[in-house]
């Protein structure tokens, strides 16, 4: 798949195959785009059918969604909502790229955000120092929480799916224990929350109207760039992807699979640790029992939808925000709000199916091309084989 290689950036090195490769790349880009489009169209068709069956008018619903979603306050809301979604997707995608299913992003970000909030509330340093301290605390906590699963997988072979789910619950209990009056929290009417972070340590905002866009969007962009660079451009990223594609091949080629597993989990957890930061540093200023939950699971859906691609996940996160924003409006218009949930589910399912279809089609096409090439070469007497003397000699049968 085009999303798996950092293609499109490298310049053609050899003159010989350059022309062919440009065509190749265009085709792979087309393949890459056709899958999500196919998925969206399928999803729209299915949701229309569902709405039609329940007696609602699907086209008016889409119109309402488009209208409401394009209002400027909606746009800001969607962008702000997409920031944590994107971070969660990136955390999940790091695992996906090496065949690890980090289903515990949810627990990781909550543990991380909680302790980051505690540290942030306890300190009163200047913002330039304290914000990095808070971010670092979050990344370290997230990393440790995921690292436990990575360590167990590498040393004992325990499935990371099981351990990360378990750690979600343990994390929830851990927070519940500390998030009580007299321990690490204070009560404010019905809300129990950690001590407020001093306002100097809040992240800045972009002065957009009507509402500001969170400055933490820069963190998401930075994570996206680092994700792209590390995975596609570094030796470490290559090792990680090699393990994801074929563990025995990676091992035979000198990659320490165990170390890569632990490192990938640590990285995934560190990014997961950042998921709570937009909320903490731009919205709430503390970790309370109203802190958003379930972002980690949304991240899984978005990583799937964006095919682990740094840009693809960005669009997927925005789409998710759009659906949630417009879903509330549909309710006012007399639709069931659940229809958005149906839509989200259908989109993810269609994406998985559409990608598999397009992938198979691509492979078949490639095999046919390889076959055609061989046929053409043998007909021409093997122009590609200066080392193969047997090429020129034709059969005398």
């Amino acid at each position, binding site marked *: 798949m085009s999303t798996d290689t950092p293609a499109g950036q490298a310049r053609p090195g050899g003159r010989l195959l350059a022309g062919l490769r440009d065509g190749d790349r265009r085709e792979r880009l087309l393949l890459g785009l056709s899958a999500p489009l196919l998925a969206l169209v399928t999803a729209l068709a299915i949701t229309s059918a569902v709405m039609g069956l329940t007696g609602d008018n699907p086209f008016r619903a889409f119109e309402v969604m488009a209208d409401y979603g394009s209002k400027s306050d909606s746009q800001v809301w969607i962008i702000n909502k997409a920031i944590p979604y994107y971070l969660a997707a990136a955390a999940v995608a790091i695992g996906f790229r090496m065949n690890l299913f980090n289903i515990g992003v949810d627990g990781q970000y909550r543990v991380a955000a909680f302790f980051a909030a505690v540290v942030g509330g306890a300190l009163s340093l200047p913002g330039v120092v304290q914000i990095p301290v808070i971010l670092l605390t979050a990344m370290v906590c997230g990393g440790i929480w995921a690292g436990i699963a990575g360590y167990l997988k590498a040393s004992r072979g325990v499935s990371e799916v099981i351990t990360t789910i378990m750690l979600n619950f343990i994390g929830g209990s851990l927070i519940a224990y500390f998030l009580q009056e007299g321990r690490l929290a204070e009560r404010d009417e019905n809300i129990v929350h950690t001590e407020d972070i001093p306002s100097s340590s809040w992240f800045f905002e972009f002065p957009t109207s009507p509402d500001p866009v969170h400055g933490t969007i820069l963190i998401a962009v930075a994570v996206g760039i680092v994700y792209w660079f590390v995975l596609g451009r570094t*030796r470490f990223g*290559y090792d990680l992807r090699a393990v994801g594609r074929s563990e025995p091949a990676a091992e035979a080629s*000198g990659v320490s699979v165990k170390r890569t597993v632990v490192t990938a989990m640590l990285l995934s957890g560190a990014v997961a640790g950042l998921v709570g930061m937009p909320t903490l540093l731009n919205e709430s200023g503390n970790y309370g029992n109203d802190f958003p939950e379930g972002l980690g699971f949304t991240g899984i859906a978005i990583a799937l939808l964006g095919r682990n691609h740094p840009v693809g996940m960005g669009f997927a996160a925005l789409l998710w925000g759009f659906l949630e924003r417009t879903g509330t409006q549909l309710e006012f218009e007399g639709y069931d709000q659940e229809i958005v949930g149906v839509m989200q589910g259908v989109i993810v399912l269609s994406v998985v199916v559409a990608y598999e279809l397009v992938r198979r089609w691509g492979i078949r096409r490639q095999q046919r091309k390889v076959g055609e090439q*061989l046929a053409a070469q043998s007909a021409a007497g093997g122009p590609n084989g200066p080392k193969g003397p047997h090429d020129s000699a034709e059969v005398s049968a």
Partner: protein
Amino acid sequence: MKILYGMQRPDEGVITVDGEQVVLRSPADAIARGIGMVHQHFMLADNLTVLENVVLGAEKLHGIGAGARRRILELSDAYGLGVRPDLLVEEIGVADRQRVEILKVLYRGARTLILDEPTAVLVPQEVDALFGNLRELTAEGLTVLFISHKLGEVLSVADDITVIRRGTTVATVAPAGTTPKRLAELMVGSELPTPQTRESTVTDEPVLTVAGLHLSGRDADGLLREVLADIDFTIHRGEVLGIAGVEGNGQAELVEAIIGIRQPDGGTIALAGQDVSHAPTRTRRERGIGYIPEDRHRHGLLLDAPLWENRMLGHVTEPPNSRGPLLNAKGARADTERIVREYDVRTPGIEVTAGSLSGGNQQKLIVGREMSHRPKVLIAAHPTRGVDVGAQAQIWDEIRRARREGLAVLLISADLDELIGLSDSLRVMYRGRLVASADPATVTPEELGTAMTGTAGAGVGTAEPGTETKPEPGTGSGPGEEG
């Protein structure tokens, strides 16, 4: 083959079974028509037992219990397959797995058997046994489609021979009216390649020294067992050391111990005088161990990755693949194009996935990759298994060329002609030990085959266990022509 077995659909043309034109949409269609296939790359579920693998997908025939077991043992006895139904497939060796594959096909009541390179994993004696079975099958009215690169086998077992080259039927001949030489010419389109090595290039400068290597593991019954014991050998610059042996006698483990995937519990491995017994795999490969793995799909390639990313595999820390911690995609791409050109890898470009190339071209890519880093020693495990004759000749040429330039090669192969032809000295491996040594200039495949079963035959000297038998420089320096 894939089309006949319903895995791929033809663009045009027709298939006729028993005079009836059929369309095979899936393997299930093919099986329903009595066509069964034994794949070159086994299609077995490792974590199921032999019995479960055989019944899988054919539960309706004899159930999954006693009936199935009875039928399996019946078939196994009838054709001398010696299958033990209750072992897990992951616990049995390659040769046994193949017998399970054959049994699977018979179990489904196939009337037409497609065998893809079935003899690659068998010793000559076992090949003869298999051929006996095949003749029995054909005598009972079954049809066998036997696909092989080994001409002698085709000639001895087939009633009719069709030569296919690059997807086209080149000729159809009767075995009585042709010779191996003529067949090979049809296959290659020119002269018959021979694996013979002409003059000795062996020096007395040791490159890879393995001493007292010992490795234990658990066998099929969970008992602690010696997988490797008392392995001693030295390979010198310019020497090819061949290891003969029935598969599953520790060859794969030996390779993995040298590469650093398995940690031996005794003995030393030294590369050019430096002890690498405890060095990680990457260090060993950086210091000059090239590796052509036995199973290229599992250990040698990333099938879903484009060729140029595969070119980095195993050498990602070395130029032209990277600079410092960063990848050098441009350098790797340019060098992949060079490999494609120089090693005649037939592909429309370097962006296609490795999985879409044919076996021979995949192997040429691997050989090109390993040779491009000028290894001191090359571990070649079955380097020409499942590749076409043209690619085979090229790979042999490449090994010979590198040997002339001072490469040391550890050659492990089930192809005895290849072993005898390429090696400067030969060892026989049996139950994890090097039990005998042979002079490739005088030994015959039959003698080697006998030694591989654990009984030393004429012309094969038994090595004293525990004492290092030094391969004398000059061994195998004779003309090497075996006829």
